[in-house]
Structure formats: structure tokens, C-alpha cells
């Protein structure tokens, strides 16, 4: 049995319907290639334009801001381009020959593409603090998704903690929605301001400047902000849920706030799982503290049939993601030898590259200013690093002391990274904890090796997959 709505083949498969994926699929389909856009969520938009077309908010722009309108336009253009958008479709494997493993509506099927554009975007960087697994602690991004998709806001004493633009954006959106925030605990290290100052000239020309300053002012008017937070702890009450947030500011005595909801955030990092499992080479980026894929001028990875567009190739934000989506699609058209009427492709690519350069201007300032403090990336011994298998930082350090060299071996020591999230919530922390303990760079430690399926898929689904004559010959004798 195969998933009824899945095509067996296509020219270009795009994975992820955020700004990069929508832009890529639109370009590919307009050029006349059969294009399928796979997306795990119920509706296109990605996380930045989440629920752009389906939000229950009657006036989304009034609460969420103008960015939301862009998501609607991107989704509309893509639908009009002739690309097939498959929402609710999970891609759990990508092979170098362009074969995808896809689950849709409880059935799995292979889809063979001539070229694959991975546009799986970013994940929120883990913020492992004591108590971060308690019910009542979530990410700021999660709260934003609840607001966009369900019109929900936190109730009771809501505390925001961490650093980065999304934290301030959420605070402003809550304010506009009439939701109260008890406190914003800013963990941006004070020294970052000095380090970031030298990138200020680039930032002055960036479109983010006015937007960012406006947000900070808007939030500071209505929310008590505690700056220079250096330690943070979530504490549970008798109910087993969050009851209190305790924090320190440098040498001052510990302070404490009652809390019903704690929303954590310290930036985002590329979602590299699918690209890693497909064998695309990645390098450690010390400015953005993450692994990012090695890409050529057309955003093609080290696997020729796979391009990587959007924040999955390095954090640039929504506008850069869109331009990268277009560029990756143009590269795919070029590789597949699609027609180039009027020689427009080179021009369109140059335009996209210029937009990317403009968008990235000022990024160095944000990366340096909001570089999360080591204390919030490389936690103390008692803090859980792996939420799924409940492995603490102390046990990882013990394993290193016993000679465990990297995250792959750590799996057999501690099962760390082998739970259902497959390392998505812990791999950056594991890499940095091990690098620090061994006194080597995170790049040398590497990322945990990933294999398909990168998302859980039932055995029944795999067993029911349609097989090819070649696959059958491989296992049948005679």
C-alpha cells in the first residue's frame, strides 16, 4: 500500500514550506518542472509565517506585525505556480540519488526526485537550565506558535528568559494581544555589547536596526526587564509543575519570582538533521555556534543532487531565506538543464545574491550581541542535557573521563541522543560539553551521526511500502 496522494516521481522535491521552500518551489514550478513541496505542518508558512493563511486571529497584523502579510503572499504565489503542496507530509529520509522516504496520512512511500531542495529551516537553540523539563516551561517559539495557530496566550505569571530578537518580538506581540508579562530576564552577557560594537557600522545599514530598536522600546515601556542575568533555575511546586524562577545577576544575591509559565529562548540554529543524514558535509561555525552545511555559489551541498536553502544553511532570517530559496531553485534548474529563455537565470541569481548580501549585512552585529553565554550552553553537572533519556551534564563528563571521544560513542555509553527527538534537543549541547571537557573545538568533536529515518515512522508503514523490481531482485533468489 502506498500513500494515495504521493507522486512516484518529480523533477524537483522541496522539503519545508517556510519562506525558502515556498520561494524555491514557486521558481521551479514556474519554469515548467514538476515540483512537489513537502511540509510537515498542517498549512504552509514555516515557523516564521506559521499559520499565515489559517490563523484564527481576526486581525493578525495588529498583533503579530506586518511580516505576516508576506507569508500569505508567498503561499498564494506558490499555489498559483503549479507546484504541488503536500501539507502534513513527513520526509524521514533523503538519499543521494534523490529518493525520499515520505509519510502522509499514515502511509509511507518512496518519491524519486531529480533534484532535492532541503529547506527545513531553523530550530530554537536548546537552553538547558535546571528544571527546564518541568511542565510550565516551554520555548518562546512554542508560545508564539500557540498564539499564531490557536490565538492562545500565557495566563498567570508569565516570565520570559534568555536572549535574542524572538524573545523581544514575542513580548511585544503579547503586549499587543493584551497579555501580561510578569518579567523579562535578559541573559545577554554585558560584555557582548562591547564585542558587538565593532560590527555596528554594518548594522546601521541593516533593515533590522529600526525594527529592533522599536521593539526594545515597545517592550521596555510595559514589561519589567531584568538585565545581566547570569544564572537561571526553574523550580517545581508540589504539583510537579513550574512554581518559581530563581536567578542571579552577577555577584548579587539570588532573586526569585513566582511563575506559572516560563518561556525560554536563546536564538536559533540550522535544522541539519535531514541534510546530515543524506551525507552533506557540515562545518562548525563559531560565530553562530552551530554546524552549517558546505554550500557552493548556487547553494548546492557536497551531494550534487541536494541544495540547501533558507536558515538550514546558516541563520539569515526570513528575507534572506526567501532569496536563498530562489537561488537554490535557479541552481537546480541550471543543473537539470532546464530552458533559460532570454538568459534571465544569471540575472535572477545575481539579484538574489545581492538581496542575500544586503540581508546578511548587520548579521555579525546580532550574532555577536546575542551570542548566548557559555553558562547557558554548557550547563552545570546536575542539569539535564538529554531530555528524552534524562542524561545530565555530569554523566556526559564522566563518560568523557572514561575515554568516550565523541557523541556517536556517547550513544552506547548513555543512550544520549537515542530518544525520540533523535538528538534535536541535545546535540549542540552534547557537542559543546564534550569539546569543553576534552579541550578541543566543537568542530573536532563533530555532530552526532544521523541515519534515516530521521523522524519516527512505524514498522507497519515501512513494511507496507511499495517495492521496486530492483529491490525485490536484491532479496529474492533464483
Amino acid at each position, binding site marked *: 500500500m502506498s500513500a494515495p496522494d504521493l507522486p512516484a516521481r518529480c523533477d524537483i522535491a522541496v522539503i519545508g514550506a517556510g519562506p525558502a521552500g515556498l520561494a524555491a518551489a514557486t521558481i521551479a514550478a514556474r519554469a515548467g518542472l514538476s515540483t512537489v513541496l513537502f511540509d510537515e505542518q498542517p498549512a504552509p508558512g514555516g515557523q516564521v509565517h506559521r499559520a499565515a493563511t489559517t490563523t*484564527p486571529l*481576526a486581525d493578525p497584523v495588529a498583533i503579530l506585525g506586518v511580516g505576516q502579510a508576506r507569508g500569505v503572499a508567498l503561499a498564494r504565489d506558490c499555489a498559483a505556480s503549479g507546484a504541488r503542496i503536500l501539507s502534513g507530509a513527513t520526509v524521514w529520509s533523503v538519499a543521494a540519488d534523490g529518493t525520499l522516504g515520505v509519510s502522509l496520512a499514515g502511509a509511507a512511500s518512496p518519491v524519486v526526485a531529480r533534484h532535492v531542495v532541503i529547506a527545513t529551516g531553523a*530550530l530554537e537553540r536548546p537552553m538547558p537550565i535546571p528544571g527546564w523539563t518541568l*511542565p510550565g516551561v516551554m520555548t518562546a517559539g512554542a508560545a508564539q506558535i500557540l498564539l499564531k495557530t490557536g490565538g492562545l496566550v500565557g*495566563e498567570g505569571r508569565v516570565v520570559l528568559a534568555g536572549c535574542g530578537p524572538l524573545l523581544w518580538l514575542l513580548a511585544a506581540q503579547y503586549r499587543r494581544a493584551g*497579555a501580561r508579562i510578569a518579567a523579562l530576564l535578559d541573559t545577554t552577557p554585558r560584555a557582548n555589547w562591547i564585542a558587538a560594537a565593532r560590527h555596528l557600522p554594518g548594522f546601521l545599514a541593516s533593515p533590522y536596526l529600526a525594527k529592533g530598536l522599536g521593539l526594545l522600546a515597545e517592550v521596555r515601556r510595559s514589561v519589567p526587564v531584568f538585565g545581566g542575568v547570569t544564572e537561571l533555575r526553574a523550580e517545581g511546586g508540589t504539583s510537579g509543575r513550574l512554581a518559581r524562577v530563581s536567578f542571579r545577576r552577577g555577584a548579587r544575591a539570588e532573586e526569585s519570582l513566582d511563575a506559572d509559565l516560563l518561556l525560554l529562548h536563546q536564538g536559533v540554529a540550522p535544522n541539519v538533521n535531514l541534510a546530515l543524514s543524506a551525507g552533506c558535509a557540515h562545518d562548525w561555525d563559531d560565530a553562530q555556534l552551530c554546524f552549517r552545511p558546505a554550500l557552493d555559489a548556487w547553494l548546492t551541498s557536497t551531494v550534487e543532487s541536494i541544495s540547501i536553502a533558507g536558515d538550514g544553511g546558516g541563520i539569515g532570517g526570513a528575507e534572506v531565506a526567501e532569496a536563498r530559496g530562489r537561488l537554490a531553485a535557479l541552481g537546480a534548474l541550471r543543473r537539470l538543464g532546464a530552458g533559460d529563455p532570454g538568459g534571465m537565470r544569471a540575472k535572477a541569481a545575481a539579484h538574489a545574491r545581492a538581496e542575500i548580501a544586503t540581508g546578511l549585512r548587520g548579521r555579525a552585529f546580532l550574532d555577536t550581541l546575542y551570542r548566548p553565554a557559555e553558562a547557558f550552553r554548557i550547563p552545570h553537572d546536575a542539569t539535564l542535557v538529554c531530555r528524552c*533519556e534524562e542524561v545530565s551534564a555530569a554523566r556526559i563528563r564522566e563518560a568523557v573521563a572514561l575515554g568516550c571521544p565523541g557523541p556517536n560513542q556517547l550513544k552506547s555509553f548513555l543512550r544520549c541522543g537515542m530518544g525520540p527527538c533523535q538528538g534535536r534537543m541535545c546535540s549542540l549541547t552534547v557537542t559543546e560539553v564534550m569539546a569543553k571537557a576534552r579541550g578541543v573545538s566543537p568542530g573536532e568533536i563533530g555532530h552526532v551521526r544521523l541515519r534515516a529515518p530521521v523522524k519516527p515512522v512505524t514498522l507497519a508503514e515501512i513494511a507496507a511500502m511499495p517495492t521496486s523490481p530492483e529491490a525485490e531482485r536484491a532479496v529474492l533468489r533464483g
Partner: protein
Amino acid sequence: MFRRLDDALTPAPVVGLTVDGTRIEARAGDLLAAALLAAGRGLCRTTPVSGAPRAPYCMMGVCFECLVTVDGMGSRQACLVPVREGMVVETQRGARVPGR
């Protein structure tokens, strides 16, 4: 933990589901995890290792803290599943029961 901005929303039909045998109401179009949080029933599961309670954490399919049983199928991610009238949801205690 969460409340609905009722005055700021477009009207939508009510969808009824049961969670551990209790009926709750959601808005058509809700993600299951959002409906659970809005109904004050965010505790989706306890962990197989220590039995600690967990609730949705990322809302984007990454953390797997929102695993519940939906219409008899175990370990579904509640943050990716839209609600449906008559949906039967059970929270998960500890390790999965084999065969589900």
C-alpha cells in the same frame, strides 16, 4: 497556563474530543497540543526513565514531549495533529505498551 483571546478571534465551530475519558472542547483548526493546553490538560505523558511529567515544549515537532495516544495509536505528536470531532486521546504513562 494558557487562555484563548476569544474577543480577537474569528468564529469557528466547536469540536468535541475526549481526553482520558473526559470530554473537552476545542476550536476547529486547533492543533491537538494547543487544545490540550487551552483545556488545562497539558500533561501529555510521563517519561519512561524516571516517570517525570512532561508537557509540550517546542510546538513544532522537534522535542517529542507532546506524545499521546490518539484513537488507539500510541506516541503521536500532539503538536502536529489537528483536532477532529470525536477524537479519543489518552495521555501516556511511562514506556509504551508493546503493540500500540
